[in-house]
């Protein structure tokens, strides 16, 4: 029995982040009362005309710049004609022949052997990405349906990959990479729950070694990461099984039924779809200024995986930290801001961001992580905290308590310490020497072991000293003091 391999291409729809709609100045938004984000153009009233939103075009161009697409000198607009109640004009403005982005490459990272380990990286090629307008939203009831046109006219970027993917995991990794990069650059929020990112998958299966492609199934509107993963996995197994039994796979559209965990044929009248594309006579072609493209390029943040590689090589940060910080643009931005204030100890800073800050955010009231814009602990104050520790003025142990207050109240570390009555550690105080002498006196055996060259034995004194100091002592100073006392003998 031959081995099969899957060939997958994705069409990813991403809502671009703009203040207004693609072809009119009605605001773009989510979660507003029905039909409150509309105007004459959105409703497709007689006599209305489209006017292009420069912001949407720039967001699309940024996508192309992030993923190395070619941005052509000229791109234009076509009408795709079909009737549906959510489509106000019964044609969609889109780019059929001259899209805004041609080609491109998306670097993806597959899951590693464990969470702490980096996974394999691959490059997925793009065919193109084109701009179009979103449709309204239908809600179905028993005997009728309601239409809300708030979403109609929202700018959408349709990203079409080459059939470069070979597993559900790769498809998921592609979506994650697109999402990381686009959220980082502020191109889209890519929230699948809000429909800001939607995915159609074309899946076919062929025996390993076969050159030509077999008929493919197109799965529409996969609207969660899990849905994408399960639908593709199911479809690959289904098609392989059909071939194993000697059958043939039909080229068709299939619906993913998440509850039943399977895809079913939509028996769609494919041939009845004749979109009668033609160039939109209401819109002239766009000649986007090249100098503006250069400006946009300069505004883009560093590519996520490049940033990760740089943090690893430049700062020596481990994957466990970079995979948290770099993959979340808000954390990356936070970390960068803290680094501007204090760049002597990136690893400690990264640790505080990836662990302490995240823990506090997750424990804050409300669902999930406290949104970054509500976090009161500023990057400046976090950097200040790390600086105090590095200068030996605050122990790590106490810092764990201090940061809780800093997170709650937003005060700098010094203010929290003062409020809590924590004195900055006095490294050369007589008190420290007193605690240390008492500890050494209390364990003569260990003291002798140290003198015999067993360095680790010194650790057994540290606990009692810290205890006596109630955590205020600087461990490094304690260690030095102990060595001095023991060696004096």
């Amino acid at each position, binding site marked *: 029995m031959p081995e099969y391999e899957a060939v997958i291409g994705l069409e990813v729809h991403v809502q671009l982040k703009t203040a207004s709609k693609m072809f009119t100045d009605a605001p773009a938004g989510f979660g507003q009362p029905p039909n409150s984000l509309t*105007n*004459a153009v959105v*409703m*497709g*009233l*007689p*006599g*209305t*005309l*489209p*006017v*292009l939103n420069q912001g949407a075009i720039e967001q699309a161009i940024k996508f192309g710049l992030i993923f190395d697409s070619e941005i052509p000198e000229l791109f234009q607009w076509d*009408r795709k*004609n079909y*009737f549906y*109640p959510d489509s*106000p*004009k*019964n*044609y969609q403005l889109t780019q059929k022949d001259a899209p805004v982005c041609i080609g491109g490459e998306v670097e993806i990272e597959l899951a590693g052997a464990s969470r702490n380990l980096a996974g394999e990286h691959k490059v997925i090629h793009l065919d193109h990405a084109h701009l179009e307008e979103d449709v309204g939203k239908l809600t179905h009831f028993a005997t009728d*349906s309601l*239409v809300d*046109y708030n979403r109609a006219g929202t700018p959408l970027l349709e990203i079409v990959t080459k059939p470069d993917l070979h597993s559900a995991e790769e498809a998921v990794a592609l979506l994650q990479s697109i999402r990381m990069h686009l959220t980082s650059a502020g191109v889209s929020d890519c929230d699948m729950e809000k429909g800001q990112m939607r995915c159609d998958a074309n899946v076919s299966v062929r025996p390993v070694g076969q050159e030509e492609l077999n008929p493919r199934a197109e799965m529409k509107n996969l609207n969660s990461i899990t849905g994408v993963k399960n639908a593709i996995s199911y479809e690959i197994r289904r098609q392989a099984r059909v071939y194993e039994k000697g059958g043939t796979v039909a080229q068709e559209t299939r619906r993913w039924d998440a509850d039943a965990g399977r895809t079913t044929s939509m028996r769609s009248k494919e041939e009845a779809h*004749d979109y*009668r*594309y*033609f160039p939109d*006579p*209401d*819109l*002239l072609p766009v000649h986007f200024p090249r100098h503006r493209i250069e400006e946009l390029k300069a505004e883009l943040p560093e590519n996520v995986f490049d940033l990760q590689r740089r943090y690893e090589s430049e700062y020596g940060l481990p994957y466990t930290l970079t995979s948290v910080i770099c993959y979340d643009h808000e954390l990356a931005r936070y970390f960068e801001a803290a680094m501007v204030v204090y760049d002597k100890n990136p690893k400690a800073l990264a640790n505080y961001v990836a662990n302490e800050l995240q823990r506090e955010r997750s424990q804050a009231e409300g669902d999930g992580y406290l949104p970054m814009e509500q976090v009161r602990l500023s990057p400046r104050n976090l950097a200040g905290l790390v600086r105090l520790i590095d200068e030996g003025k605050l122990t790590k142990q106490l810092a764990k308590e201090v940061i809780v207050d800093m997170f709650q109240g937003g005060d700098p570390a010094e203010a929290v310490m003062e409020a809590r009555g924590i004195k900055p550690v006095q490294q050369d105080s007589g008190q420290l020497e007193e605690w240390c002498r008492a500890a050494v006196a209390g364990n003569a055996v260990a003291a002798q072991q140290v003198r015999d060259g067993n360095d680790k034995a010194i650790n057994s004194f540290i606990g009692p000293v810290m205890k006596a100091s109630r955590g205020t002592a600087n461990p490094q100073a304690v260690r030095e003091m102990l060595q001095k006392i023991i060696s004096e003998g």
Partner: protein
Amino acid sequence: MDAKTLIQSTAFDLGRALRKGNTTATEICTACLEQVARTDDQVQAFVSLDPEKILAAAEASDQRRKNGQELSPLDGLPVGLKDIMAIEGAPLTCSSRILEKFVSPYTGTVGAKLLSAGMIPFGRLNMDEFAMGSSTENSAFRKTRNPWNTDHAPGGSSGGSAAAVAARQCPWSLGSDTGGSIRQPAAFCGVIGLKPTYGRVSRFGLAAFASSLDQIGPFGRTTDDVAALLDIISGPDPYDSTSWPEYLEPAMVQLNLPEEPAVLGLPREYFGEGIDPEVRSQLEQVIEAYKGRGFTIREISLPHTELAVPTYYIIATAEASSNLARYDGVRYTRRSTESNDAVDMYFKSRGEGFGPEVKRRIILGSYVLSSGYYDAYYKRAQQVRTLIRDDFLKAFESVDAILTPTTPTPAFRIGEKIDDPISMYLADIFTISVNLAGLPGLSMPCGLSKDGLPIGFQLIGKPFEEGRLLQIGKTYEQASPFTGRPAIANPS
């Protein structure tokens, strides 16, 4: 001033009388409303008319003028509007059953320009449904008559706009022209009609028939009036991406310059077979008049002329099939009460809502865009369109304007062509190329047939040279004034 004088006056004279305090907007509008009341049964130019609203607007205008706060020198003048332009709170039917109850919730750019000049929208004028037709017989509501002879069609699609001005129901009006819909009815009704250069006048608020061809333009009884109305409605518009982005000199500026003899081209393709002998002899008289004014007449060739009609009907129907998809019974158009599900709603609402010509053109347009035919029809038509435009550009290297008949015949009888679409399409043979090339075209009345029907000639100008075109028109107007008026417009 008495009502009889008022309705015979040009808009220019009415404006002057208003400014001098010799009349009021209320007087003018009242006179026009009376003339409508007297003649509407015969002409049937209006789809709707709201006298109360008109008189309230007139009163407001008179108040402004009294306070020295008039919005423009033309504040208070009524202007008739083809029922295809959006003005908030006014009906907008496109003479179609499917928009029968539609009241526009917004004002388009031309409407806004009229209102901000203090002008008074004077009724909604009948047209061929969605501007598709050449006789106004395709209106779902009324059959507008030619004021010169009510057995004859006023032309179309802006038949109501032409007929109302000819019948002295309003001093001027606006229409729209996609393939001759201003110039042909102007010629049939003995008034002046101008189709501006594509992009000179915003299309925002004009219900689209064929987006790459449509333009709004004025009807009037003098070149001065037509120029003044053109200047009010022209200009770049941020709401229309296809409006010409640069400032253009008002047509009135050029019109007031001293006359300068021009070189006029006579395209031989426009003077061949199929022209009514009376039209031909009137044109010869026009040519002589221009020669008498020192103009040079030169024969030229526009070799792709015979391809214009098929090219036009492919492009126009393709665009229309898509433009009219929005009339679906969902958001604002009439919905069939018979529908069981959404798909059924589309079929029935559109089946019941559209008339035969609109259906025919949508079906044609759907065909020429459908997969497998696009290249052979639509794309090819666009290529031929390039050839047609290039013919004109080449001709303009040696002439200042082109002189042609506006129509091959005077107004045909109502019902004469309605069952023969191709012969109806050929009625636009002299006007269509101008839209394909995006050029300005002016139709001037130049005489009457022996049956007493008006005959018009067309002047085609270089892009955005409406001022020059009107100036050339004015030369004829002065050399050989068209003073006729239909009996219906005579004082009773």
